[in-house]
């Protein structure tokens, strides 16, 4: 027979263990939340130290289906790939603004990356879309000494494609304005291909063909003209 005082002691100790477990669980949760909050407040973008430069953007207008050249001042990095991404980011920021003439949600973060490669021959580009001849191992992709025509591979985010308005005109204007803006600021870019989340995709939002290589010069119209 267990004495009564031992039973009471056992119950009290058990209750104390349960209470301490609950308190410890709550303290663990609070510590975890503090850590997560600390990560959120960390800077996610490097401060802009590049000097502001003039960039020409080919801005689309749904009203008359035209592309109009617009000069904007923005900080541009020296690296060609980052420069291309910054210019396209600005262009897509204009489209994401309220009352945009070519409204497309997403903004600058919709351009995940822009890769620059030596351009393949026109026959290969317009035909099967064959990739450029591979470089020797160890050669940087965007070689600063590269002086020939270049192929830009624009990697868009899945969210941008998913939220893009569907329609022949609106999709073609987005594609042509990206191609034209790249060519206007990086004249060596003569061909453009698109990927979405790093994968090939059939169309942008059901119409514009994203499997083909676009010739950038085709997308650069005379001032205010239709592409």
């Amino acid at each position, binding site marked *: 027979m267990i004495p009564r005082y031992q039973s009471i002691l056992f119950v009290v100790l058990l209750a104390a263990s349960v209470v301490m477990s609950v308190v410890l669980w709550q303290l663990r949760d609070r510590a975890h939340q503090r850590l997560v909050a600390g990560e959120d407040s960390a800077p996610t973008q490097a401060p802009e130290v590049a000097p502001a430069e003039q960039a020409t953007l080919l801005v689309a207008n749904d009203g008359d289906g035209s592309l109009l050249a617009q000069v904007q001042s923005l900080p541009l990095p020296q690296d060609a790939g980052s420069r291309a991404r910054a210019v396209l980011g600005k262009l897509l920021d204009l489209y994401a603004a309220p009352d945009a003439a070519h409204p497309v949600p997403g903004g600058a973060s919709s351009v995940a990356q822009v890769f620059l490669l030596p351009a393949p021959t026109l026959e290969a580009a317009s035909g099967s879309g064959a990739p450029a001849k591979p470089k020797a191992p160890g050669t940087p992709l965007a070689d600063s000494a590269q002086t020939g025509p270049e192929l830009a591979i624009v990697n868009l985010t899945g969210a941008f494609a998913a939220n893009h*308005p569907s329609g022949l*005109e609106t999709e*073609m204007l987005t594609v042509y304005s990206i191609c034209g803006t790249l060519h206007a600021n990086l004249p060596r870019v003569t061909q453009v291909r698109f990927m979405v989340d790093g994968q090939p995709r059939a169309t942008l939002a059901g*119409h514009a*063909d994203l499997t*083909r290589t676009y010739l950038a010069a085709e997308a650069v119209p005379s001032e205010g003209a*239709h592409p």
Partner: protein
Amino acid sequence: MRWTSLALAALVIAAGQLAAQQAPLARFVVVLDAAHGGDDLGGRIKDQAGRDQAEKTFTLALSVRLRSLLAARGIQVVTTRESDTTVDANRRAELANHANAAVCLSLHASESGSGVHLFASSLAPAQPARFAPWKTAQAAWVERSLALAGVLNSALLHAGMTVSLGRTALPVVDSMTCPAVAVEIAPERGPGKAVKSGLEDPAYQARVAEALAAALLEWRTEAGQP
């Protein structure tokens, strides 16, 4: 007996000549491709009441309306779909190419922009070849397609509509071996982007279809067919 044989021979020759003269009449075929359908809804379009509608509904409605108008004018029409069915892009081009069409129209709808948007293929013009690559078969027809877009543009402007002309990379059109234009119908907008006529408005659809039918009649006349 001899006279009867001669009369029969003369009849056969006359019938042959008549058939040869009427042959071009039967050759004027228009292919209407109502884009999307079945599982492929196309774009989502808000009507004036704020309800979401699928693009495939508008393209089929326009195709049916235009087919009736053309048939009433004695033009032979081939459609890529007559109901809400899924038709592969290659199958659409295949149907158009087998029809040996004088005109191919790919019909689309969008809530972006205003009026009617006309697009010819963005492929560079090329010389016709006996065997053309499937994905760029339209290259040999691009110049005729641009001419057709011009005729459609004039008719739509004449009907008082806002029209924009452009080039596009649309796989269905790029594989067609006929003068081909993609026609995208958008709401008619007034100042401040306010919608004057929505895509669901039957009167607006009828105006667009009438203008397109008038253009195709003119194209037939230009092609030298009465």
